[in-house]
Every structure is written in C-alpha cells, then in structure tokens.
C-alpha cells in the first residue's frame, strides 16, 4: 500500500460523545482505523507516540540566554523592520522626513507661548526657552516610546500570527525608530540652545551618556508596555492621562526649584526620584550653563543608571516571560 494510512478518531472520543451524528461514516472507515493504529507503534497512546518521536507541545518558553541568542540572530530583521517602519510612517505625507524635525519644534513653540509668554512660569530664569525645550524634547522621547510600545504587539498581529520570530524584535525595532528620531530632534535642540545664547562647552559631551541611559530606560519601558498593552488593551484609553500627569510632574514646563518651595522631606525625595525628571535634569546640566538642578550631578547620574538598569532589564524579562502568549486568543 503506497498511500499513507489515515488515522481515524480515538476510541475514547467515540465513547465519550455518542450523540455525535457520524454513524454511517464511521462504520465505513472502521477497518482503516484499525490498520492505522496497528501501523503506528501499536497500542501506544497518542501522548506516548508524540513523546517517543520527540514532538513537543507548542508553547515552550526558551530560557533567557537562549532567547537573547535568538534575538541576536534576528538583529538584521530588527534593523530592517525599523527602517521599513520609518519609511512607511511618513511615506504619504508631503513633507516626509521633515516632520521628524518639525514636530519637536512646533511642540516647543506651543509650550513656550503658553508657559513662557502668557503665564510667565519661569520666575525670572535667564534662559527659559532653552530650559523649556530640553524638557519638552527629552520628555517627548519617552512619551513616543510608551505610545508606540503598547501598540507593537497589538498592531502587528498579522505578522506575529504568520511568522515565527522572537517577538521582542518588534518593540526593539520600535524603540530603535524612536531613538533615531530623538537623535534628529537632539540636533535641532542643540541648535535652539545655541541660538538662545548658550556657549558650546566640553560639558556638551555628557549628552552621549545621558542619551545612552535614557535609551536603555526607554527600551525597557517599551518592552514592558508592549506586553502590558497586548494583555490589557484598555490601557490605551488611559495612557494619554498617565502621560500628561507624568509631564506635569517632571518639571518640564516650570523650573525644578518649584518643588523645593512647596514640598519637603520624603515627599520631595519621591518627586525628585522621578526618572523623567532625572533624565531631563541630566540633559539640562549638559547643555545649559548654570541650569538650576534638583540634585548634584553625581546623584543624578547614579539615579539615572539605577533607573536605566532596573527598567531596562526588568522590561526585557517581563516581555520574555510572556513570549508564548503573543498573538494567541
């Protein structure tokens, strides 16, 4: 017999479901059932058969080092996906890539008009435009990562269901896009800061480690948001409120010294440990001469490193543990 013999239903199932309307079909095929059972390692249960042939139930979680190795093997995909996302996102606008520069400038202009000119929130600070712009730009970086991060799994279900690849590739590529966008925005920001009269000093080199730490922090946050957003789609409705609250709590729009005026003790410490405040402060310290800081630069660097490590590693582990659940259900 050349044709592979088919395997009919298991006897247990037939017994457990006698009401099933399959009488005539079954009796016709019954002889074949017996040959199939006899041919496939006679008498073995299906579970046993699967085990003997090294078949695994789908859904085994790879170990963390194994997962990291897989991700590394997919680095070309991550890069290609990021650049593809970038071209396709602005592909149908007239100005195209100009928006990458224009968006942060408009953003800073809006806040400047309201908080700098109308409300005068600066309390006689010498270079408020530069101070405000640094805050807006740095905050925008994290905000976009949170917003795109929660959508990386939900928005790519088609790709996830069609192909098997380490799912962390998607939030990582999204983070890569945002890092690239921020580097462009950073160049614009430096231009603004120079135009407003800040001198170009060696301290500007501190931008690089600050950028690195915030990128690690953001990537972890993006990974976290990707898994959280995939399981709890309702969070999407809440993110605008959370981000606005975070924005107002991070001394973006007013001098950081205002916290010390109204808070003290542990309350002040909690507010000043806010990671966004820390990253914004570091960037201000690097770019603006004599910018008022909440803490000494050393304390800020330590806080930033702790935040980056905790959130970076934590977000990665959190995402990895959910690896097998993405795209299911």
């Amino acid at each position, binding site marked *: 017999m050349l044709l*592979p013999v088919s395997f009919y239903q298991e006897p247990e199932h037939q017994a457990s479901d006698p009401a099933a309307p*399959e009488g005539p079909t079954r009796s016709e095929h019954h002889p074949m059932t017996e040959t199939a059972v006899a041919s496939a390692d006679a008498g073995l249960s299906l579970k046993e058969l*699967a085990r003997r042939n090294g078949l695994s139930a789908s859904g085994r979680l790879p170990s963390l080092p194994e997962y990291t190795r897989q991700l590394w093997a997919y680095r070309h995909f991550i890069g290609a*996906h990021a650049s593809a996302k970038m071209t396709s996102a602005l592909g149908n606008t007239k100005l195209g890539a100009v928006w990458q520069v224009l968006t942060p400038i408009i953003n800073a202009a809006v806040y400047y008009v309201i908080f700098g000119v109308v409300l005068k929130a600066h309390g006689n600070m010498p270079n408020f435009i530069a101070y405000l712009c640094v805050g807006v730009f740095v905050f925008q970086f994290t905000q976009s990562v949170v917003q795109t991060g929660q959508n990386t799994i939900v928005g790519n279900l*088609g790709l996830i269901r069609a*192909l098997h690849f380490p799912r962390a590739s998607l939030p990582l590529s999204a983070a890569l896009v945002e890092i690239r966008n921020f580097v462009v925005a950073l160049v614009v920001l430096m231009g603004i800061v120079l135009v407003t009269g800040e001198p170009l000093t060696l301290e500007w080199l501190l931008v690089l480690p600050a950028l690195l730490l915030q990128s690690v922090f953001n990537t972890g946050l993006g990974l976290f948001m990707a898994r959280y957003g995939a399981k709890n789609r309702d969070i999407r409705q*809440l993110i605008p409120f959370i981000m606005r609250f975070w924005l107002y709590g991070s001394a973006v729009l007013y001098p950081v010294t205002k916290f010390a005026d109204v808070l003290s003790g542990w309350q002040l410490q909690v507010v000043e440990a806010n990671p966004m405040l820390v990253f914004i402060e570091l960037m201000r310290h690097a770019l603006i001469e004599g910018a008022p800081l909440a803490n000494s630069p050393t304390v800020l660097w330590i806080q930033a490193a702790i935040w980056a490590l905790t959130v970076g590693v934590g977000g990665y582990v959190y995402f990895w543990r959910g690896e097998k659940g993405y795209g299911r259900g």
Partner: protein
Amino acid sequence: MADSERIPTVVADDAHIIYKIHQAGSASSSPLASFKRLTTRSKNANIREVHAVKGVSFVAYKGEAIGLIGTNGSGKSTLLRAVAGLLPVSRGAIYAAGQPSLLGVNAALMNELPGDRNVELGCLAMGMTPAEVKARKDDIIEFSGINDKGDFSSLPMRTYSSGMSARLRFSIAAAKKHDVLLIDEALATGDAKFRKRSEQRVRELRAEAGTVFLVSHSEQSIRDTCERCIWLEAGEIRADGPTGDVMKEYEAFSRR
C-alpha cells in the same frame, strides 16, 4: 508497508479549543468606562466563548499533504491556528515537530512598502541571513509572478490586487523549508497559472520531508495536492482518509 519510516510530525490528542471573542460595540470605548473596568475587575460583558473544536485526534506523518475540508465555520482555520501554536488548547494537547508555520491570506506585511522590501523583511523574519535573502529575493519575486505585468515589485503593496498580495505572501513563506507548513486558503486566491505553480511548490515542500496542511474550499486544489483528507464538521472529525473517499462523502453530505 514501510511502517518504521513513518515519522509523526503532528499529533493531536483529543484537542478542544474554546476561544473568547471581544465584541465591539456597546458603550465601552470611552476612557472612563475602560478605567472603571480596570479598577473593578468586573467581567467584560462583551466577551463570549465559542467552543470551536471539540475533541479532535489525528496523527500526521512526514511527507504527507493533508486537506482539511468542511462547511464554513466548522473549525478548520481554528484547528490550523492551534497546530501553529497560535491558539491555546483548552483540553487535550497538540504536539508538533519543530515550529509549524501558518500561512494565511490575512497574514499582513507592510502595505506602505514596495513588494521587494516586503520580501526582504519577510525572509529576515523567517530567520534568513542577509546573504541568503539577497540570493533568494529575485527567485521569490519571479515565483510570485507579480512582475508579469510590469514592474510591480517596486510599488507599495497597498496598490496590489488581493490576488497579487496573496501570491507574494505565499511565495515568501514557501521560500523556506518548513517542518510543518499550514496553508489557509492561500492557493485559492491566485489565478490558474499561479495555482499550478504553487501546487507544484507544495509537492516540493512535501518531498523535502515536511508535512503540509491545506484548508481550502476549492475541491480541485485539495484533490490535486493532498492524498489524505480530514473532514471537520461543527468542530468534530466526520471522516479521515484518502482524499477520494472523504470527498465523495463530503459531496454527498453537502448535496443533502
């Protein structure tokens, strides 16, 4: 009979699949309502359960092409997705060799990007190295035949007809050797010429010692590619055997 050489690749052991459906509609899309549900942890009234597959058992072997037939809503696509590991099994189990790949018509790539970039991206996503991608890219586009009527591979995929993009997706997925390849209606979308080519490719994939599952409403493509057929009806297996026999019964059933 060469029984010792028959190696099982997919084993379904009394698999039940129940899935939950989020129904859109009603007044739950405002931020306030979402917040309320999050805080009270109340059960979402919009979730309904569907028992799509009720106790399915079968063994698929290396080198087989198996057709899945049944009327609409009989659980064929759900079963495929469970074999691919994309849907959890509520009871029983499905075991598989390696990582089964599901190829469906709704597997979206990036619609804003031109076809050739989608080919690169798809190949990289399947784990090919950039060198392999470079070597295979032209073959894939050639196979898909999207360039038959002009240079379509450099146009965004959103300009493609549904048949063209289905062909391209099939070509990308078929470029790699799979232990288990699951095809959901993909062959039905192409024209006659492409169907012939893809059936040929399915036979090649099988020859490379893989197992192919094919869901289709086109009797012809099942008859042409599969020698074994499983007939699902209302989530249960009605028949499993050589395509000719099963098809005869299925036809008798659908005429009734």
